[in-house]
């Protein structure tokens, strides 16, 4: 059964439309990620699911029940906010049990639940402290605890980890994943961090400009983005986009690439070539991920392009090389020790079986 159904949701503030025809169907127990750049409407959508914002058009259902007009307290949801929003005047215990108290859960049952939640999150020793006396990570746990106490059918998280430092964020990410595997309660999780999105989500909805650009499993989105925005947003470092000409020479259909010296025509695999031919235009944008470009070791490689090596950035596990193809900067991922030297030239091999092509005008994927 689907726990959350969003049908044709629209939102306008005054004259400004912030969400356009959002459709999402979420299965029970699913971990759904809403990811997108700042200002794309993630928080707005989450607040609408929670009942904190009115719905301009469309329909939202939780557990198969239309909830458009219901207040947040009657939607059977719990929410964790980016700034935690712990009540500063209450102890941790008070924070966790406040929602239960509002729902008239009897006192003994309340303290039972608080203790159980505190145990789950290992915050038993903090129960009598005020939020001001907690560290960032501890506050985060309490905020999650407040949501857990309620046993809702749906958890909503709005960038819960973005206020934590990098190390703590990694730890909490893992803990959240474990928590979800244990509770099996559905979660909607907002983030603008694509690594969080990839690691946590069962499915990801990539949002941009108030629209869901693509909704799918993380790997699927990574491998098969529907447009240039999704392709560029998911993956780090971002995919390289190279404007190029398509041409056929000696029966081979391919792309022309130049590293500043000679121009090479690199032949494309048949499947891609067929799609591009039926698309029928002469110019496209080639999308290729940094790991699909490699400096070639063999001297005379026909399918390699000689390119300048502008900057070399070692990061530890990988070394990134900044080069230029068809006058745009590209990033190449190398294994350390095999990177060319800055200032030299290198032959770059493009794995075109993984290449994507986008329409230069609409940014839609064409092959």
């Amino acid at each position: 059964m689907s726990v959350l159904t969003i049908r044709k949701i629209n939102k306008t503030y005054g004259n400004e439309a912030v969400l356009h025809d959002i459709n999402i169907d979420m299965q029970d127990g699913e971990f759904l990620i809403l990811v997108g750049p700042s200002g794309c409407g993630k928080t707005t959508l989450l607040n609408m699911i929670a009942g904190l914002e009115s719905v301009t058009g469309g329909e939202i259902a939780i557990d198969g029940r239309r909830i458009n007009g219901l207040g947040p307290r009657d939607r059977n949801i719990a929410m964790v906010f980016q700034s935690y929003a712990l009540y500063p005047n209450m102890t941790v215990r008070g924070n966790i049990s406040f929602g239960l108290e509002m729902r008239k859960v009897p006192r003994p049952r309340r303290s039972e639940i608080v203790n159980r939640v505190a145990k789950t999150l290992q915050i038993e020793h903090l129960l009598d402290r005020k939020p001001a006396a907690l560290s960032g990570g501890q506050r985060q746990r309490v905020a999650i605890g407040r949501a857990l106490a309620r046993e809702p059918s749906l958890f909503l998280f709005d960038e819960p980890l973005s206020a934590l430092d990098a190390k703590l964020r990694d730890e909490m990410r893992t803990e959240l994943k474990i928590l979800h595997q244990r509770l099996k309660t559905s979660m909607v999780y907002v983030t603008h961090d694509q690594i969080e999105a990839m690691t946590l989500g069962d499915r990801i909805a990539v949002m941009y400009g108030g629209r869901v650009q693509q909704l799918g499993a993380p790997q699927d989105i990574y491998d098969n983005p529907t447009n240039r925005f999704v392709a560029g947003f998911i993956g780090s470092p971002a995919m390289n986009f190279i404007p190029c000409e398509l041409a056929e020479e000696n029966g081979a259909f391919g792309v022309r690439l130049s590293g500043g010296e000679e121009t090479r025509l690199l032949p494309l695999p048949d499947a891609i070539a067929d799609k591009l031919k039926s698309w029928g235009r002469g110019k496209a944008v080639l999308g290729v991920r940094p790991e699909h470009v490699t400096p070639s070791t063999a001297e005379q490689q026909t399918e390699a392009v000689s390119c300048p090596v502008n900057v070399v950035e070692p990061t530890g596990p990988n070394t990134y090389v900044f080069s230029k193809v068809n006058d745009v900067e590209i990033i190449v991922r190398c294994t350390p020790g095999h990177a060319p030297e800055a200032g030299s030239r290198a032959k770059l091999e493009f794995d075109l079986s993984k290449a994507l092509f986008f329409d230069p005008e609409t940014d839609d994927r064409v092959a």
Partner: protein
Amino acid sequence: MLIYAILIFAAAYYLLPLYVMLTTSLKTLHQVNNASLLSLPDPITFKPWAEAWSSACMGVNCSGLQHYFWNSVSFVLPAVFISTVFGALNGYVLTKWQFRGSNLFFGLLLVGTFVPYQMFLLPMAWTLGKIGLSNSIGGLVLVHSVYGLAFTTLFCRNFYVSMPDELVKAARVDGAGFIRIFWRIVLPLSLPILMVSIIWQFTQIWNDFLFGIVFTSGTHQPITVALYNMVDTSSTGIKRYNVDMAGAVITALPTFIIYILAGRYFVRGLTAGSVKG
């Protein structure tokens, strides 16, 4: 060192009137008339205080300031309470439950902090007469509550603006409504601003003279007006400056004590009140 000299000189300037008030109020009339303004009282006498409190004359009525002191207490406290409660509620609504037009509402209310009170005196005098509140404590409570609202609302709104909205959102998800969010979450966090509002309102209303002299007469007057009448009366006969000064100190005492005890909030109110909008 020059800095200290200047600062101490300035301090002397500010303290001079207080010193003169206090010493004069403890002098005998003989000493007031024959010794220097700056001399210390010798002998010290508390008689001027007793007189100012219980037997000095305002016109023909010679029962001292005490009655008027309690007059002031009896309208200042309710007016402070009412204006602060509504200020807090208004601030809460105007920041956490905004609706179309709520900013306009606030803007229109703010006008009230600029308009000279002279614009309200005549219509108010007439209205108080019509509703049977002229020359009464109730009338002063009404007037001071109403004209304090703009300030208390301003204070509280500016305070609540910086309180995160997510707190209210979290409480709504937790199942609390408008009233319970205010009572359980917003109000317990409001102590600093309530102090500012209460202290500001208390000093404003206690020190008011204009409304007192316009809307009341005789035994219903506030202490500031009574002090003025007392000084005015004494200046027609022999000037009894020692009693005048004792009266002035008595009038100043409540706000002075509050200032000494909670000056921090007092200053915060002033600076908040001056940065409108």
